[in-house]
């Protein structure tokens, strides 16, 4: 049985620092940062860190970023979508360099996490793949890949980070703008999702507010109970 919304525990965290060890751009609009975090704490897949930027006059800006890496990775990995005019994401994508030290705090969040034993489905879109990647990596390390099913939605293969890794891990990839011959372009459907839900007890939804609204609706249409759905919303909103 998985825990209910009423019984997850708190954990104190404090600010520390992280150094950028690797930086690349997996897709045209994203940046991947792999960081060495001082006094690093163990994390569960699905948790996030705060990254805080500090100007010379002590003005700060902080945002939340999900962890992509697995527990046994010596570095903590993030994938950040560069939003036009986004204060923190543009800085991380365009200005930050290998060797830079950033303020960090985490891991945070005990609810949107996978306990690695409950059969679960991730329905994620765009940058929302990040926590699903952490969950899939943990599942692979533990030899429990059969417990986790990932359905990742992107506009096209070129625009979805981690698409190849997820495909190798057996994920279902759905392109909203690319017709693959096997699958017409479009969001996932009840028919596609229903067989993947067999035996699962929890559903994780992650992506933009618009994607999350779509994904929740789809899961409910597939007969998933509202109490079995956990949601994390990213990015700009209206």
């Amino acid at each position: 049985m998985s825990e209910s919304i009423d019984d997850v525990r708190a954990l104190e965290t404090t600010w520390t620092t992280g150094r950028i060890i690797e930086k690349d751009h997996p897709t045209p609009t994203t940046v991947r940062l792999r960081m060495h975090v001082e006094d690093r704490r163990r994390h569960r897949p699905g948790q996030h860190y705060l990254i805080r930027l500090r100007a010379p006059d002590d003005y700060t800006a902080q945002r939340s970023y999900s962890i992509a890496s697995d527990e046994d990775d010596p570095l903590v990995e993030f994938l950040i979508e560069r939003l036009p005019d986004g204060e923190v994401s543009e800085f991380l994508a365009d200005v930050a360099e290998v060797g830079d030290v950033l303020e960090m705090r985490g891991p945070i969040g005990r609810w949107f996490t996978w306990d690695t034993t409950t059969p679960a489905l991730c329905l994620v879109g765009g940058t929302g793949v990040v926590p699903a990647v952490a969950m899939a990596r943990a599942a692979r390390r533990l030899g429990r890949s059969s417990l986790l099913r990932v359905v990742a939605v992107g506009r096209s293969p070129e625009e979805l980070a981690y698409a190849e890794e997820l495909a190798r891990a057996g994920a279902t990839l759905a392109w909203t703008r690319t017709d693959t011959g096997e699958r017409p372009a479009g969001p996932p459907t009840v028919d596609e999702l229903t067989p993947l839900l067999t035996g699962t007890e929890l559903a994780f939804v992650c992506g933009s507010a618009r994607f999350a609204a779509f994904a929740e609706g789809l899961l409910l249409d597939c007969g998933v109970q509202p109490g079995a759905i956990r949601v994390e919303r990213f990015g700009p909103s209206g």
Partner: protein
Amino acid sequence: MPVTRGFLGRRRGHEGRLPPGQYDTGAGWPVLTAEATPVVDTASWSLSVDGLVERPTTWSWDEIHQLPASTYVGDIHCVTAWSKFDVTFKGVSVDELLDAAGPLPDAAYVMVHSSTGYTTNLPLSDLVDGKAWVVWEYDGKPLSRQHGGPARLLVPHLYFWKSAKWVSRLELMAHDRPGFWERNGYHDRGDPWLEQRYQGD
């Protein structure tokens, strides 16, 4: 803490009005929810005030609208660092609800419950004297489902996770007990001006 090489900061202005670490989200209103957005219809909606009170009371949608209406105009602050200025909410002051239910002398804390199972805890003192509302209108329109409609709690002087969406029950208690985010590492009180974001702040 180190200065970030090359970072100058952009979302400034509003000094004195933005709590530390916050930025102005402008016209946006981010949606942050841990659960699927529920459909709560006004016909089955109700709000209860119970626990350490003289008269446990439940209002239906029509009954709560009979209470004197009250409006909040001001700012709101989310722990994820956005603030939103000059928002208008309409509903009823929590003082009205407490007057009807009659808190007992040993009531010092409140557990707020949502119909989804979400909970958040507050000292009673943060809900009285015109500091908190149960609201159903935003900007002159019915509060949308994604923002907690048909009715949510509004405690604008604290981080917004205290303003429980889809509010269904205020439970008065003698002793504090952590709610959902509070058990998940968030601060027990959540004062944005003191930057009480997480446990240990």
